[in-house]
């Protein structure tokens, strides 16, 4: 067991070092394609969490619970697309982070986006979306651990969820737009892209506030009941 774990650590460390090396080589010799560089950077950002999750021998329950929450996020995105101003994806991912910890939130955010893009479309934006929603789950989990948000502070939680969307999810996805547009149109200032993305992000944030306000207390209550019942 010890030997295998050590071997994995070595392999994963080698992977990350290799990724960084490839990045440096690209930056030095490529035509400084910003989109490729940025995307590789984002993937490098996801690697440590994935590796950490792979390295510890996870319990079956942990894996299944993350899958269940990701599937719920995806299904609610698809099933309630008709309900206006109700975009539950970010909300449910944040609730996952709050209930099962930052790592679980990050992974469920990544998986949800990856799989729901099979239904919509995979594109150059996929890694960025995965990272953005992963961060949303991660930050929500951290804040919950610090006791800043919880199911008792319904309004505060909802508003902080909205702030997370405006501060993290929106800008990360806008950055991907910026890199794509930068290649396409020549001189685009980043501020123009971030400003033009702001209305969309504001709508998304408002939808997340509504979702969290409605869903957070009942869902967390249900999850806590399950936690007590099965001693998780």
């Amino acid at each position: 067991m010890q030997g295998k774990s050590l071997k994995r650590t070595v392999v994963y460390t080698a992977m990350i070092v290799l990724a960084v090396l490839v990045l440096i080589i690209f930056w030095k010799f490529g035509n400084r394609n910003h989109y490729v560089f940025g995307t590789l950077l984002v993937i490098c950002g996801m690697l440590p969490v994935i590796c950490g999750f792979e390295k510890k021998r996870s319990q079956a329950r942990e894996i299944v619970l993350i899958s269940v929450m990701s599937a719920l996020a995806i299904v609610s995105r698809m099933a309630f697309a008709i309900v206006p101003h109700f975009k539950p994806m970010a909300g449910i991912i944040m609730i996952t982070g709050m209930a099962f910890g930052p790592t679980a939130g990050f992974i469920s955010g990544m998986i949800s986006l990856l799989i729901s893009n099979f239904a919509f479309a995979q594109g150059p934006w996929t890694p960025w979306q995965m990272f953005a929603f992963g961060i949303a789950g991660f930050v929500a989990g951290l804040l919950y651990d610090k006791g800043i948000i919880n199911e008792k502070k319904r309004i505060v939680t909802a508003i902080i969820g909205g702030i997370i969307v405006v501060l993290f999810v929106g800008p990360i996805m806008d950055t991907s737009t910026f890199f794509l547009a930068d290649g396409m149109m020549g001189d685009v200032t980043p501020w123009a892209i971030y400003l033009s993305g702001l209305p969309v992000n504001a709508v998304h944030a408002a939808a997340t506030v509504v979702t969290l306000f409605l869903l957070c207390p009942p869902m967390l209550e249900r999850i806590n009941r399950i936690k007590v019942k099965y001693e998780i």
Partner: protein
Amino acid sequence: MSKETAFAQINPMVCFIYIIGAMALCMFTIHPVAGFAVLFMTLLCYVNVCGRVVLKKLPLLLVVYMILSLSNPVFNTRGETILFTYFGGRPFTLEALCYGMVLSAMFISVMLLFGIYNRMMTSEKLIYIFGGLAPNMGLILSMVLRFVPHYGNQIKKISMARHIKEEGKYSKVTNLLSAMTTWSLEAGIVTADSMKCRGYGCGKRGRFSIYSFKRKDIVVLFLTILLFLTVMVCRVKGGLDAVFIPHIKIIGRDNIYFVIAMCAMVLYLAIPIVINVTEAVKWYILRLKA
């Protein structure tokens, strides 16, 4: 859906590396001749892999291409040769137009490659790749793929059972999702305990796969890496250099690295076509014999 093409049947790992490599080639090519050669080859590949139906999309692609190329000079006014001015003196330059045309060709090639990716890399192939590198992530992926349709059905059932109850739109959604949460988590715990009882997490871990690594896969992988490296080396040596602004300066035929890079690039993108066509010819001959 038509049946899988011969190229889609090679090992998913090789397939994945190939497509990522092709995207990298596209994104690093700003040389006009190479750019249009790549666009032409990816278009051929796309038609070859996805069938002749996609030819209907060609006019749309052309429109997108025109819009993208023509919009570049609007945002980018640098360049020496001014074609005309508008809005009281804002120049529309030839250099920016050419740059826009090459960039749009690159953009459309990448989009076509994503089309090929969506067609060839089905979710089970992705699980195969993840399962090797990151077993836990692979397991989560395959579970989520199963849960999504399952939960969709359950949501329908619950909403049918609650149909008669009069409630507002939002409280309805909230109640539905709360019910779903309880149900899915309980079912999940049962699944997890059942997995544990059957010995999940003890002993050596195997994985299910229907894909083998054949000689053909090795050949394709070898060719992919070889051609990709050839192009990259030629790039570093300056074989694909092109400058558009302030005036156009591109590497021509007289540069040996340019010729090698072009050949390697076209060959790289021809791999799927060659495989598919060879397979088709083989079948044709077999049918003739029968």
